[in-house]
């Protein structure tokens, strides 16, 4: 009887250890907001890491807006939903200040990256995150075939741009000249930032970010009241449409122009048919870099740092080959870029690369900015009220 008990106990212990051993197989989890075609383009980057290291990598989709709410609560309870998470740089810095981010100083060689790109995730002399690829928000995309069919030309002045919109509006079958992509509000914010950067210059963008200029400043108000609102009132922009639906409608010819980031080149059927132009006179273009970090509560810090370094270096080379991304890693050779992305990268020449305004300011102001722009788009006569609200929120 005693012997049976001992044998049973030994077998149980063996079974438990076996299961524990199986469960202990190393597995890393990566979270970002990419889904659909963007996710399909990102998966090979993770697969490459799995092949090189033998460590399994799982991928989960979460929007950054939702992570901004979920992560602080999880971090406060010393847990994290993933080992590598893509988030805004301001969020990474804020969480690093609270001790929730693993320091990764030494994991990357700063000289391997575009100058200054690591600054956004550095504080106190330490590195808290890694840059991934960036996307330019270059301007208004159009189909070359559409322009050719209707005898349209890229505008060189503001007057030509307004005239182009007026001509497109009269075309049969076209609902509006410009498709207004919308999600939680961010594609509308991209358009707005482009107007600010063009008519206020890169200085105004930086001053608004730093809080040196108010949203109610006459110069800022003039851009909204004299440039953006008149176009909205004239019906040159569509009402806000879910942005992936807007992309489909624009590609089908319901709209002629679509303001979107350079990732659109990886989403359309025929990238060779794509053309893009910035607003005439634009001296700066938003170059938005994606950043990733490792939470301090990861079970596998060494492996997570390794994955982060892979994403920032070899991963970027693989990603840009898929189209729609611009590497911040200088080791990515130019010949891996699809031709249309080389054209997009060329748009930055002679122009200043600007940070994304709302991603940089962040906090509670960012969703307020998005929400107010959704109001402005359908009620452009309320531009004064929108700017007052933005300033009130910025002042908090």
């Amino acid at each position, binding site marked *: 009887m005693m012997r049976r008990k001992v044998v049973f106990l030994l077998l149980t212990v063996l079974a438990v250890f076996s299961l524990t051993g199986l469960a202990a197989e190393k597995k890393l989890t990566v979270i970002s907001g990419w889904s659909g075609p963007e996710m399909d383009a990102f998966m090979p980057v993770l697969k490459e890491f799995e092949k090189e290291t033998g460590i399994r990598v799982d991928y989960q989709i979460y929007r950054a807006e939702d992570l901004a709410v979920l992560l602080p609560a999880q971090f406060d309870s010393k847990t994290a939903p993933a080992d590598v998470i893509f988030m805004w740089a301001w969020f990474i810095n804020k969480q690093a200040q609270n001790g929730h981010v693993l320091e990764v100083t030494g994991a990357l060689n700063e000289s391997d990256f575009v100058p200054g790109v690591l600054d956004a995730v550095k504080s106190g002399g330490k590195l808290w995150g890694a840059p991934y690829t960036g996307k330019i928000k270059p301007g208004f995309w159009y189909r070359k075939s559409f322009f050719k069919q209707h005898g349209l030309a890229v505008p060189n002045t503001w007057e030509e741009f307004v005239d182009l919109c007026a001509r497109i509006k009269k075309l049969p079958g076209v609902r509006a000249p410009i498709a207004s992509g919308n999600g939680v509000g961010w594609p509308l914010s991209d358009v707005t930032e482009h107007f600010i950067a063009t008519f206020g210059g890169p200085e105004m963008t930086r001053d608004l970010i730093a809080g040196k200029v108010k949203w109610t400043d006459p110069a800022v108000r003039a851009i909204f009241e004299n440039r953006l609102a008149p176009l909205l009132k004239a019906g040159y922009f569509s009402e806000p449409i879910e942005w992936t639906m807007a992309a489909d409608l624009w590609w089908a010819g319901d709209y002629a122009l679509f303001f979107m980031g350079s990732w659109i080149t990886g989403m359309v059927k025929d990238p060779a048919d794509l053309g893009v132009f910035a607003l005439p006179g634009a001296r700066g273009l938003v170059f938005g870099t994606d950043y990733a970090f490792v939470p301090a509560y990861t079970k596998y810090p060494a492996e997570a740092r390794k994955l982060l370094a892979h994403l920032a270096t070899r991963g970027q080379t693989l990603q840009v080959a898929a189209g729609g991304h611009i590497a911040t890693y200088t080791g990515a050779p130019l010949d891996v870029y699809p031709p249309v992305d080389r054209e997009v990268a060329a748009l930055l020449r002679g122009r200043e690369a600007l940070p994304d305004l709302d991603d940089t300011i962040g906090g509670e102001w960012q969703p307020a900015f998005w*929400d107010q722009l959704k109001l402005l788009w359908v009620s452009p006569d309320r531009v004064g009220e929108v700017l007052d*609200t933005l300033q009130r929120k910025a002042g908090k």
Partner: protein
Amino acid sequence: MRTLRGRALFFVPALALLAVFVVYPVVNTVWLSFFTSEGQFALLGNYGEVLSQPEMFDPRGFARGFPYGALVHNVMWIVIHLPLTAGLGLVLAVILREIRGGAIVKSIIFLGMVTPMVVGGVILRFLFDGNVGILPSLMSIVGIPRRTLTAYPDTALFSLILGSLWLWTPFSMILYSAGLETIPDYVYEAAVIDGASPMRAFFAITVPMLRPVTGVVITMTFLWVLKIFDIVYVATMGGPGGASNVLALQMYMYAFREFDANSAAVVATLLMLVALAVSIPTFRSVRGEQP
């Protein structure tokens, strides 16, 4: 006495859970609402500050239109949704009781009730979409230009209220259906003999005899509307420009976007007080009717 003490011991685990997960959070929330984020006692200072925020109450709305503030939006929601839900539920219950296949139709209507609110919000977002939505398509047939109803400040809130009718009317319909079964047939037979028309019987017999059920429907609907959050969050996020913002969403914004627990506690306490003001009389009236 010993038996009673012995039995009381069985309540201890449940009471402990209640104390930890209900009583403590409620007391702590109310306590938080009287203090600033620096820990200073503010009495009603927080309440004044929160209620003066345009997100909560915006009197400018009465001159220019939406938004009016979450407080007013919730009142609008209650004023529009409550009578429609109760009335529609009663009418459906009466009609579907009489017709053949009524049970099947009731089951189809009940789908709205079993749909998760988050899914309901996604459905509403596309239901009112100018490009693919059914409602704008139907409106275009009668000459109204297609537009995304949830994208405009003057129609966003009303669209959500209309959509919420589909989600909550099954509740009142089911309650009234059950209530109708409790009315004896001989009451209607007597009314017919006395020459009462179906309409007269409805108002003179059905409505008065369903008063207890109506009380429950009104209370539950009121409480449901008071705490409405998920469909607004998913469908419009309270926009555009706060035009469809509601109290529960504003509480969420304070707590998880602005990390202002004290302001969130103020909204939570206000919601609790209003809910108590409505539900306590209802419970009392139900107890009063018990034999």
